[in-house]
């Protein structure tokens, strides 16, 4: 049985990782793999690909840990490695399915809202049924990749604007613009299900 070690600070864990301590590596995986799995799953929308991206991310992180210079938090750096692994897979997916009809993703402007019906329910009282959870998760998958990664890191994982920008290698202002567009796009995607429906989600019909 292995001795139980603890790393009270990130510096202690990092020093042990750089010294090649396998226990520290296991601790790193234990601490961060659930978070990084959530990220790769929500970026890729596929459990198999999320697992592969997660494995690639940790292999890459363990190989490159000696070059980690501490410009950002260790966690932010790991989010960056995992996000890159997921984005590489998205790129590969697109190369494998080149289509002349594929929509072009642009950074130009926020699309104007089209669905302007009231949402008449209290979001704190809504029952998050399996159906509603599915609708919310599927809407994330419909976002353009550049908006989805920002929404996942900033809104769902709760990274700060700076941490999200560092994880994605973009500016803080670009992060804010993309977050806004992601929020507006999700609002529009959800409106057909949630607008103009009197408390349906608050008091779901019992079958």
């Amino acid at each position, binding site marked *: 049985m*292995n001795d139980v070690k603890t790393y009270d600070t990130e510096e202690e864990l990092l020093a042990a990782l750089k010294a090649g301590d*396998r*226990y520290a*590596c*296991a601790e790193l*995986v234990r601490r961060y*793999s*659930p978070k990084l*799995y*959530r990220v790769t*799953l*929500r970026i890729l929308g596929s459990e198999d690909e999320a*697992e592969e991206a*997660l*494995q690639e991310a*940790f*292999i890459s992180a*363990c190989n490159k840990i000696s070059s980690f210079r501490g410009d950002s938090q260790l966690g932010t750096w790991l989010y960056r490695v995992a996000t890159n692994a997921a984005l590489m897979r998205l790129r590969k997916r697109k190369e494998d399915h080149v289509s002349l009809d594929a929509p072009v993703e642009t950074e130009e402007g*926020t699309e*104007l*809202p089209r669905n*302007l*019906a*009231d*949402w008449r*329910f209290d*979001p*704190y009282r*809504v029952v*998050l049924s399996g159906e*509603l*959870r599915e609708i*919310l*998760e599927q809407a994330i998958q419909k976002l353009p990749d550049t908006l989805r990664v920002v929404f996942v890191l900033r*809104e*769902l994982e709760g990274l700060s604007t700076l941490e999200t920008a560092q994880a994605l290698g973009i500016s803080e202002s670009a992060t*804010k613009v993309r*977050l*806004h567009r992601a*929020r*507006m796009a*999700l*609002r529009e995607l*959800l*409106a057909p299900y*949630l*607008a103009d429906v009197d408390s349906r989600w608050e008091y779901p019909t019992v079958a």
Partner: protein
Amino acid sequence: MSIPDGNTRPLLEDGMPMKDALDCGDVLELLSAYVDGELSPELCRAIEAHMAVCHDCFVVLDSMNKTLVLYHRLEPPEMPEDVELRLFQVLNLDDFLT
């Protein structure tokens, strides 16, 4: 409809546009900064003045807020145990699995 042309400005009681008031396009671009508390009190007041007379923009703000509340309440997906097991195996760390 006011939003698609993005030119609706709040009107004063006599029907004249308010000086320096925001139009729908301005308000829509600022909504996230507004909900994230990044705007000056003056700009917040200008947005609230616009909302008071523009139901369309109010609906967009209200529904965006509700969208965010729902996502914040959404339980994050959990990593299955077999995914963790295979990860430790791939990294040759399976002797550390508890």
